[in-house]
């Protein structure tokens, strides 16, 4: 089976890869580009551990084919910190201990960042609905929601 040649941008860097037509963007990120931040929890769109943005739009990378990345801008959790400086969301997740095993964390960070770009001042209900597609088996969500609300406050004050 012939492979597809794809040119795309990942976290600002132009990247090329060859992939099988059946390969998902998640497989490509993890196995071909060595970006293992996005996780596979379910592979069927239910858990959100594989969340990335494509052209600024939050999606499950397990439900996107690698071939569909052609000409797009992909952003993953690896692009959230600036060098050694953590993003406010990342700092607040540590501060609030909003993770235990950490499998869900990359997806939740990407999803929460995408929410705060769209809505810098969300209500708790809005945060909970926005993150309804990001499952966490460890924390019980409360600390996650607090960390996101706190990061939102800090980011509003800083801007």
């Amino acid at each position: 089976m012939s492979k597809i040649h794809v040119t795309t941008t990942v976290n600002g860097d132009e990247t090329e890869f060859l992939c099988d037509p059946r390969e998902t963007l998640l497989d490509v990120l993890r196995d071909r580009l060595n970006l293992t931040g996005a996780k596979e929890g379910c592979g069927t769109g239910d858990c959100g551990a594989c969340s990335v943005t494509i052209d600024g739009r939050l999606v499950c990378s397990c439900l996107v084919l690698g071939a569909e990345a052609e000409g797009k801008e992909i952003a993953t959790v690896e692009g959230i910190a600036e060098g050694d400086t953590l993003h406010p969301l990342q700092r607040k997740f540590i501060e609030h201990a909003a993770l235990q095993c950490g499998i869900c964390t990359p997806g939740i960070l990407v999803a929460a960042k995408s929410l705060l770009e769209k809505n810098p001042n969300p209500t708790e209900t809005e945060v909970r609905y926005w993150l309804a597609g990001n499952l966490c088996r460890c924390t019980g969500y409360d600390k996650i929601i607090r960390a996101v609300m706190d990061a939102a406050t800090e980011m509003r004050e800083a801007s």
Partner: protein
Amino acid sequence: MNYHSPASFAEASALAENADGVTRFLAGGTDVLVQLRADIVTPDTLIDIKKIDGVSDITQNDDGSWTLGVAVTGAEMTEHASLSRDWPGVVEAMDLVGSTQVQGRATLTGNLCNGSPAADSVPAMVAAGVTVTVTGADGSREVAVGDIPTGPGRTSLAKGELVSAVNIPARGDNAGDAYLRFIPRTEMDIAVVGVAVSLRLDGDTVTEARVSLGAVAPTVLLVQECADAIIGSTLDDAALDALAAAASAACNPITDKRGTVEFRTDVAGVLAKRAAKIAYARAKGETVKGDHA
């Protein structure tokens, strides 16, 4: 599996016409990739329609009607203020599909053509009188949304045919629509019952109505008896009770882990009343939030 991304609907249709084995079109992929992944359906030919010109456009035509490209996502619909003002029921029904992540990809056309009897946007489109443009080797035809599904997972589209546009009628004055579904959770689940109502008023009196039910039969239902129960009324209690009775009577559901036949039949009536009240208030010019805050 061969992956194609044609530049036109004619090309997409020709690819499908000449393909052997199983063909799927790829819109948002939120059904296609799940089925691929679970080895339920492994297409031999996958035709990505998102590179075709105009497929992400939302256009209001001069007569007030709307044309939506077949790759327009749920998120793009929700963000469109005037479409949401005209057809809040259709927009909310699509918005109920999946999570934020799923909303970034899922389309009306995919929801329709996947053929699930529980597809949320389909009753809302049927109540709204939405049609789709179907393009094949011999050109294009316009088909009512209700005539596309023929059974669970099956559609009336012939080999080589695909949907090339979604056409939503002009809303016109004194009119409103609404869609409500019952799920055992508040988010991320499949409809046990879905009810859509679209109606128009003259003063306080309902003059036109279309009521559609989802997840209570092998295909979506457009129930004339429900419309008849409220046309000519001011949506008083007697009319609402008649509406609920007609909705329950139209149900032909199955029992599964989400709900029994009796439960689905009863809930269809309850939701029909509630959806009708919301549609009525909207027709009166009130802003009413739907199910999804």
